[in-house]
């Protein structure tokens, strides 16, 4: 098989599985649905491995699959660009997807929508692969919206739950706000570059470095700044950056496997991937990079704080994801694109692991998601416990584990960055280390250690945020009194183990080639003269082992350690202290409970405002002015005339109308021709 067919096979195999499982979801047996989809994704994974090796051997590809459309001077194509960045993403996507497919057999076994679920996640895999394999902006946008669609379908998978169908609409609409910016960015690219093909655009990009456009009044704006910020707004939606992050916590309404696949490992990182792909453009605008950096830093730190006060196991992990996406964005802003992709990859493994482990805990707890009802699960769920511990350690940046290498690289790169906002960003990512360690181990201790709080019959009182409470109404079954949690079946634990392995080793293996080496040579472009942060960091880099040892002299390590120790002290030793703090700092607690009031503001200003505006335009404009005064006013006059003329006729209007028109035609033809 030649390489081009292999490239095609990667997205098409999952698509085939999705179509079979989707179209025939009501007729085929469950084993067939999961077999066909798993085979599809496994094929894609296998092909991705082959492609990865081929890329390693130095072969890249850029070609058209088919011409989508031509118009004017423009040609729009569907095509693939296969290089080291694509190959990395393909491996991550297909591997995590495969794990999630297997896991789903166990997680969804009692669900009536079993086949439909498999169809959706395979369709997602297809869409995500089309996104990362694209060689042009249009196909990128295709994949971009397609993953948004599947995310919408999956968040609302349990479509009878009011919270789920609210969350999925919210997710779609917030993403649409991002896409609004994204499409304008694409439009600017096409308008000025005359092409949407990556290679073509990147080749021309330096010529446009000093181009300015007139956006508002007489003010001239740098084209690259406007275009890059527009594109980044798209990334803010998909990768859940403040203020477009509001959809991600709510997306936890979806089944846990998709939280791992879509809302942690793959789809939400599409924005990070996109900006990295566009590095030749972003490098031309320090203003845009600064914007990226600051948004990322805000997300990294402030979303982490929210993780501290969550009691729903999935929401803790969700806020952690938000915070980690902020880290990746910070790396992008610091022009350390390769580091961002590196963190994307390590995060995909350990965060998918943490989510799937959370799902395993949820199964073990009979669908109780409140960590206040857990405790001491270590004894009952040993594999879940151990893999969770590995995932948490990787997340907080324990030296030598995956998260350490990627996160520390980000911190170091930001330290050397000098663009506006980098001081704040450095503070944010450093403080974020402490916060991450604290919330991660708060959850870890509350779930796996300490007093066994489950099976008490009565759930701990819910004075948490009421969103949780609503969400939990119909699916919090929980353990009956005296009932013990149980370890989950092998289809659930096997993916945990398989994800734990890269969570440990991938950082050590990857940092050399991906960050320090020339793995991304010719793919990611950094203007080292203007943005030297990464190259300065690399001057201090002497191999993965040395970096691990050096960690013990860095503030990040001690901040992380402090976070773990403090959470142990607070939640294992003196649980009265956090409660006291909550009372003492009621205002802060109130703000965090309300998630900085983003949801309330959105609901009131945007959702409410749109409805009020719509009503005003309708009642005032359409019904009041146009119909009320102009049309019905004229109609009254006509009606008055008609009342008089009605005296002269009796039949149906349509009789007359037909007779009239036919008569006219005949008369005109005959009479005028012979006259």
């Amino acid at each position, binding site marked *: 098989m030649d390489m081009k067919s292999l490239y095609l096979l990667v997205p098409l195999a999952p698509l085939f599985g999705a179509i079979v499982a989707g179209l025939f979801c009501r007729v085929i047996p469950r084993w067939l649905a999961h077999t066909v989809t798993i085979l599809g994704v496994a094929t894609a994974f296998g092909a991705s491995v082959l492609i990865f090796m081929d890329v390693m051997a130095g072969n890249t590809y850029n070609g058209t699959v*088919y011409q*989508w*459309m*031509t*118009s*004017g*001077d*423009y040609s729009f194509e569907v095509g693939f660009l296969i290089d080291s960045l694509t190959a990395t993403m393909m491996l991550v996507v297909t591997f995590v997807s495969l794990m999630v497919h297997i896991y789903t057999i166990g997680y969804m076994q009692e669900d009536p929508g079993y086949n439909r679920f498999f169809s959706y996640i395979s369709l997602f895999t297809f869409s995500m692969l089309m996104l990362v394999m694209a060689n042009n902006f*249009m196909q990128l*946008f*295709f994949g*971009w*919206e*397609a993953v948004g*669609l599947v995310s*919408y379908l999956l968040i609302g998978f349990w*479509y*009878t739950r*009011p919270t789920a*169908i*609210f969350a999925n*609409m919210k997710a*779609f*609409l917030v993403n*649409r*706000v991002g*896409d*609004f910016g994204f*499409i*304008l960015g694409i*439009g*600017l690219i*096409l*308008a000025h570059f005359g092409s949407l093909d990556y290679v073509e655009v990147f080749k021309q990009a330096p010529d446009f470095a000093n181009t300015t456009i007139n*956006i508002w009044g007489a003010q001239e704006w740098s084209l690259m700044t406007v275009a890059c910020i527009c594109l980044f707004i798209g990334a803010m939606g998909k990768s859940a950056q403040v203020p477009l992050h509001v959809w991600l916590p709510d997306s936890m309404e979806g089944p846990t496997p998709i939280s791992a696949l879509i809302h942690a490992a793959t789809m939400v990182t599409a924005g990070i991937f996109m900006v990295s792909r566009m590095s030749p453009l972003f490098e031309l605008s320090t203003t845009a990079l600064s914007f990226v950096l600051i948004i990322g830093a805000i997300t990294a730190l402030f979303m982490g704080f929210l993780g501290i006060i969550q009691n729903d196991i999935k929401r803790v992990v969700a806020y952690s994801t938000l915070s980690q996406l902020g880290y990746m964005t910070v790396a992008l802003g610091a022009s350390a694109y390769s580091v961002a992709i590196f963190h994307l990859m390590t995060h995909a493994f350990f965060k998918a692991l943490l989510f799937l482990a959370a799902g395993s805990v949820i199964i073990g707890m009979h669908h109780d998601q409140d960590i206040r009802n857990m405790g001491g699960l270590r004894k009952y769920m040993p594999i879940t416990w151990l893999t969770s511990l590995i995932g948490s350690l990787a997340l907080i940046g324990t030296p030598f584990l995956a998260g350490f290498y990627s996160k520390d690289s980000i911190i170091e790169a930001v330290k050397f960055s000098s663009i506006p906002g980098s001081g704040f960003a450095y503070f944010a990512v450093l403080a974020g280390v402490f916060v991450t360690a604290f919330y991660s181990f708060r959850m870890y201790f509350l779930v796996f250690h300490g007093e066994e709080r489950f099976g008490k019959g009565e759930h701990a009182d819910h004075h948490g945020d009421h969103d949780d409470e609503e969400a939990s109404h119909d699916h919090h079954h929980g353990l009956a009194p005296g009932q013990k949690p149980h370890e989950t079946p092998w289809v659930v634990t096997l993916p945990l183990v398989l994800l734990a392995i890269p969570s440990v080793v991938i950082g050590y293996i990857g940092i050399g080639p991906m960050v320090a080496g020339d793995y991304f040579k010719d793919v990611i472009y950094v203007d080292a003269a203007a943005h030297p942060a990464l190259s300065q960091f690399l001057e201090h880099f002497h191999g993965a082992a040395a970096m691990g040892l050096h960690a013990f002299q860095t503030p990040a390590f001690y901040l992380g350690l402090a976070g773990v120790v403090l959470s142990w002290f607070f939640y294992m030793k003196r649980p009265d202290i956090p409660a006291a703090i909550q009372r003492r700092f009621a205002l802060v607690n109130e703000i965090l409970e309300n998630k900085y009031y983003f949801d309330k503001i959105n609901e009131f200003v945007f959702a409410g405002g*749109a*409805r009020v*505006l*719509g*009503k005003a*335009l*309708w009642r005032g*404009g*359409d019904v009041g002015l*146009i*119909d009320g005064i102009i*049309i019905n006013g004229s*109609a009254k006059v*006509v*009606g008055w005339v008609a009342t008089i003329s009605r005296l002269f006729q009796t039949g149906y*209007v*349509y009789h007359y*109308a*037909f007779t009239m*028109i036919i008569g006219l*035609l005949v008369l005109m*033809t005959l009479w*005028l*021709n012979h*006259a």
Partner: protein
Amino acid sequence: MSNYPLLSLAIWVPILAGVIVLMTGGDRNAPLARVLALIGAIAGFLVTIPLWTGFDVSHSGMQFVELHNWIPRFNINYHLGVDGISMLFVLLNAFITIIVVAAGWEVIKTKVAQYMAAFLIMSGLMNGIFTALDGILFYVFFEASLIPLYLIIGVWGGPNRVYAAIKFFLYTLLGSLLFLVAQMYLFFKAGGSFSILDWHQLPLDLTPQIWVFLAFMVAFAVKVPMWPVHTWLPDAHVEAPTGGSIVLAAIALKLGAYGFLRFSLPIAPDASHELAGLLIALSLIAVVYIGFVALIQTDMKKLVAYSSIAHMGFVTLGFFMFSPLAIEGALVQMISHGFVSGAMFFCIGVMYDRVHSRQIADYGGVVNTMPKFAALFMLFTMANAGLPATSGFVGEFMIILAAVKFNFWVAFLAATSLILAASYSLWMYKRVIFGDVANDHVKELTDIGGREFIILAVLALCTLWMGLYPQPFTEVMHTSVNDLLRHVAVSKIQ
């Protein structure tokens, strides 16, 4: 094939079929009337296929031309022809006719023959509009096609049909009269010719051009409909039976837009440039203002009707940016809107047939009882929101991209449709389809049957085809659109 008078066949086969169906008489023969109508509609569609397969994409002028004397005294001719702008609409119209005949199959129980005949005759007349190259011929078809539509609303319509019909009538009356006056003016100016193609070449000063343009604009803007002459459409849709709504949205709205391309732009190019700002402003108001209005509608048909107006705003926006990407985008948007809005109205009809309500509040949780329907409805809802891989995306994408080049803020306002269209479409879908079973009506719903499934599946395939591979659609437009733009770029002022 081109030896056959294909365009005449496209016009007269459905009309003849309509007359035959009419002859089956009363409702005793309803089954026969249905079968004959379906045969007629399919035959009408089949004769249009050679128009696409035999279309010469490199030829910019009119193709399949037929020219006969009709009223020599006034130099009025039976002059037909299609180019890359009009050809696809003939096919779309013939295709939609099959859909509406099938859509009314079991649903219409009274005056079946008359109902079917009205649609067939209307289909033929509308093909006449898209193919006429003589001003008077166009006008005759343009006006005559109103009658069947008026009848469909008036006879098979809802309780408030009289109000809707009067509104419809008032709006179109004003437009038609000015249209006719403008035609008379051009006739004399052109030295006694009603040929539209002659008018294209006719030199005109700016002032008369502006008057002619405004007269045309009133006629076409009402049809499109553009803001602020749009308020007849929601009422007409609400009162029309399902089939009427489908034709109204899928074809009738396209007539006005088509008129802009066939008359306004080439006949008054300088005025078009002069007044482009006005047209663009009205189009953007349609996109944004109507988007908000659609959001708060409580009647599903009204909501989709308003969304039609917003989508047609994209069409007129595309016309007046004078770039190939924009105009082809507008044409693609028109065809796509034919599939998608047709399907949306059919979906609402499916629910209305069962529950006899169009109110969103009367539904909820329909997916529990109608899963197949919910899946297909989801596809069309997404297409309505312009999701990539559906036809709804293609035109909007092209127009927004072209708008960025034209003016960033025009693009900015147009792109709000991404958010607004998703908001009103998905919010309606959520309230109607998702959730727990809301009431006993929903509980007793039966999923779509074979006939309904086939109609929706065919429309779904069209939507996806056009979304995944629009090249066959745009390919036929290139030469004609480029030709039109070259023509419009040259001033007619002497």
